[in-house]
């Protein structure tokens, strides 16, 4: 755990507020960018003790190591500075390794908080940079020259004897349960990890589909090893129930979609049929009008020929002129 000497003279401010520059410990690189996880409304030192402790735990600091709130504030500040200096891509790599269900667009602090929750001690598939990030976030000092075995050793040392024993015990229990359930290691799916899509992108594109629950599911043995017997089994049951519910919801959704498509298709058919009928009625009416008009024309012509109508009366003056 990297500690910094508490500075009781100066108040610790959240990033983003006009704070004096803090000396950066040699273990942490100089910060280049700090993105706060929330809008800082108050100074850290003004936070109540329980909130401060909760914040410290979220950043992977063990509260018991700090004597006073001022010490804790300094440690949180240092931790945030350190996180600000980490590479975002490496943080995402560790998230993928830990198979944490997060959004890909989280900021560095949120990613670091997720990484802190990863308790796994199986480091296969993690690059050296990823190991460095994980080691730093677990509060172990890292040198620039540390290679992978050294980093792994440091992490194992940090774990402690009793924690390791507990983990081994849980692993044994896990393999026992796994054997009882008949779940083999080969059954573990090797699907690629996918980040949780943002809420507005769900359904918008097939490439950002929700990851298959199985792809992010560790084996029961690993779950029990990481979380304990009851928590592991409970987590597995909960996940299975979630899978079942998701499957049923997908089925219902697809059924509703099919119904809606069917309704739309029938409505379009009805519309076309209705318009065709109206046009046909109009056509019949027009044919009738034209036939009657033609008949009327012929009738009028024949009638004039057979029964000529009387000539219009000629005015008297015109008749006189004609007689003269």
């Amino acid at each position, binding site marked *: 755990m990297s500690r910094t000497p508490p500075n009781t003279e100066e108040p610790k401010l959240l990033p983003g507020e006009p704070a004096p520059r803090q000396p950066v410990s040699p273990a942490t690189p100089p910060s280049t960018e700090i993105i706060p996880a929330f809008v800082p409304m108050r100074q850290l030192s003004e936070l109540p003790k329980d909130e401060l402790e909760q914040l410290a735990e979220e950043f992977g600091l063990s509260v018991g190591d700090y004597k006073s709130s001022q010490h804790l504030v300094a440690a949180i500040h240092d931790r945030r500075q350190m996180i600000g200096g980490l590479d975002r891509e490496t943080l995402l790599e560790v998230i993928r390794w830990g198979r944490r269900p997060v959004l890909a667009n989280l900021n560095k602090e949120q990613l670091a908080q997720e990484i802190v929750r990863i308790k796994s001690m199986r480091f296969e598939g993690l690059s050296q940079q990823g190991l460095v990030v994980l080691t730093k976030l677990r509060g172990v000092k890292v040198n620039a020259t540390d290679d992978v075995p050294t980093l792994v050793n440091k992490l194992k040392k940090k774990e402690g004897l009793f924690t390791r024993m507990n983990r081994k015990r849980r692993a044994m229990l896990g393999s026992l349960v796994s054997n009882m359930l008949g779940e083999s290691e080969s059954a573990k799916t090797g699907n690629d990890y996918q980040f949780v899509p943002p809420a507005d992108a769900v359904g918008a594109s097939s490439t950002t589909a929700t990851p298959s629950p199985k792809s992010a599911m560790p084996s029961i043995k690993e779950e029990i090893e990481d979380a304990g017997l009851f928590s592991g089994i409970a987590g597995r049951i909960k996940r299975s129930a979630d899978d079942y519910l998701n499957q049923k919801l997908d089925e219902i959704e697809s059924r509703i979609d099919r119904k809606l498509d069917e309704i739309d298709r029938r409505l379009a058919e009805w519309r076309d049929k209705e*318009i065709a009928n109206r046009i046909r009625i109009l056509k019949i009416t*027009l044919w009738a009008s*034209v036939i009657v*008009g*033609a008949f*009327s024309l012929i009738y009028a012509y024949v009638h004039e020929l057979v029964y000529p109508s009387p*000539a219009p009366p000629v005015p008297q003056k015109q008749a006189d002129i004609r007689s003269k």
Partner: protein
Amino acid sequence: MPDVDFFQFFRYTLGTIATIYATILTLQSMWAWIVWLSGHDKYISLVRRYVIVHGLRLRFKSFWGDVIICMLLCVVFLLLWYAHGQMRHMFTAYHAAKASL
């Protein structure tokens, strides 16, 4: 004493009344639809958009044969109407010329 042709009178009166009646009914119906579809309720706006989409989805090709026939029949009807008038003028002129001889 005015010379009233009752057949003509009946025909013109019926035509006028039927035309006015049909026009008023059509306009009334259209106005009622417009008022209903221009409502601000979200379901009404949904229906409005749906109706617009269905209108845009209409394909002229499906009905183009009947539509063209209707247009041609309208032209023929107007020509017949014109021919009626021309024939009446022709016979009037003919009788007038005959009487003046």
